[in-house]
């Protein structure tokens, strides 16, 4: 469970949000929606400890591991690692042959789940946008997180690929009780995949059912 109480964040004098309160239960699939600059990325960074809060409390039980797929990545055409090696960056160093075998098993399982198994030797720099997003997702999963945060992972993908990626995330959510926090500007995906949304509005956050969502909340 993730619980946020009276959370406030300021950058200097600029208030990003104040008095934010919400709970996310284990195994939930929620979306974070709101206009550009409303503070969605900032909030998840605070959850992960990558950004300091100004005041308030963040409670994450059992110190669950969080897998984060960031909004921006700088992988250019010349990027040298192949997809499997890119995913493996997130593994811990080990000398134990048993742990190594286990790592390889996990990597292969995730490569299969993300449909990347046939592409594992392809240079990541040469992969398509959708393949890259899947590789970013796979890298975050390799560490076996209890919570997965997707920051605009479907932006810039065409519809088929979006659905494919989201179906996969949904499956992980249902099968392995993975908590998913999905940041998006896509109201259709929000309605199709999540039951609940946290709307960033008027410098605070309002939990709502996805039925209440309308297009104008995004732009």
């Amino acid at each position, binding site marked *: 469970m993730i619980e946020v109480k009276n959370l406030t964040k300021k950058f200097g004098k600029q208030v990003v949000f104040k008095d934010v309160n919400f709970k996310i239960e284990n195994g939930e699939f929620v979306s974070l929606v709101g206009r550009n600059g409303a503070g969605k990325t900032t909030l998840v960074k605070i959850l992960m400890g*990558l950004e300091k809060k100004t005041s308030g409390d963040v409670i994450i039980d059992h110190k669950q591991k969080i897998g984060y797929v960031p909004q921006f990545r700088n992988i250019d055409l010349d990027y040298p690692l192949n997809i499997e*090696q890119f995913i493996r*960056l997130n593994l811990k160093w080990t000398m134990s042959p048993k742990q190594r075998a286990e790592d390889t098993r996990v990597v292969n399982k995730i490569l299969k789940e993300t449909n990347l198994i046939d592409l594992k030797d392809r240079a990541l720099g040469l992969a398509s946008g959708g393949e890259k997003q899947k590789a970013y997702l796979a890298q975050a999963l390799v560490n076996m997180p209890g919570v997965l945060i997707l920051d605009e992972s479907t932006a810039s993908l065409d519809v088929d690929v979006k659905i494919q990626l989201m179906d996969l995330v949904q499956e992980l959510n249902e099968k392995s009780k993975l908590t998913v926090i999905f940041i998006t500007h896509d109201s259709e995906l929000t309605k199709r995949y999540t039951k609940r949304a946290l709307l960033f509005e008027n410098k605070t956050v309002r939990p709502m059912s996805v039925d209440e969502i309308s297009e104008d909340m995004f732009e």
Partner: protein
Amino acid sequence: MFGYEFMQEAFIASTFIAITAGIVGVFVVSRNMSFLSHTLSEIGFAGAAFGILVGISPLAGMIIFTLVSSIAVGSLSTESSRREASISAISSLFIGLGILFLSLSSESSSYATNILFGSIVGISAKEVHQLLILALFVIVIFIICYKPLAFDSFDHIGARASGLNTRLLSVIFLITLALSVSIGAQIVGSLLVFVLLTLPGATARYLVHSVPKLLMVSVGLSLAGVWLGLYLAFVTNWPVTFFISAFEVIAYFLGLSYKNWKLSH
């Protein structure tokens, strides 16, 4: 050629320096720091000249200057483009300083040539030991930090997202870079040390696609260049630096052609 004791020592020191440069080079290239390593070698030149002027060893002067400036760079703004502009401004100042220090010191100009162009065959047993210790120190740091450093160097954003202390890693890396520049300059000279620190790592990227393989190929190319250079220099009496840079440049362009050939097939 191993009949001469000074050749044996030069050979052992060069071997360890080459291994260090090969390892560091993979990270220099993936962290987009080729430019910085070039600048550090110019700053190292000023440091060596300063060492001569104040009567400490050129190596010590070089290490002091490169360490201080690489840490200063690390604490500058992290935005790379702005960093490059300020770095190149600073580096011109240091070349000027190096020339000033040399002209103020009473040493002969052969010292300057040694700093600029390298002089592994002429160094003493004591200096060889110092180089060895420094090279081993750098290698040990890399073994300890290998995993997080690889993550940060090949996917900085992902490494941050996974919670690694990327700032600390950056400082550690800059320290090893400063040391590598200083010891590498002892064989190839400060003018061309960035050849050894960037080309093998850059060539490897054209050939293989995993971090361990990149390291192996880079170290292999670096060793091959240094060994071949020492041998040919011994036989022909031409400068080691010439052979090393020629070898690494040829390997680089062969690697590039291989990659282009593979892309078109």
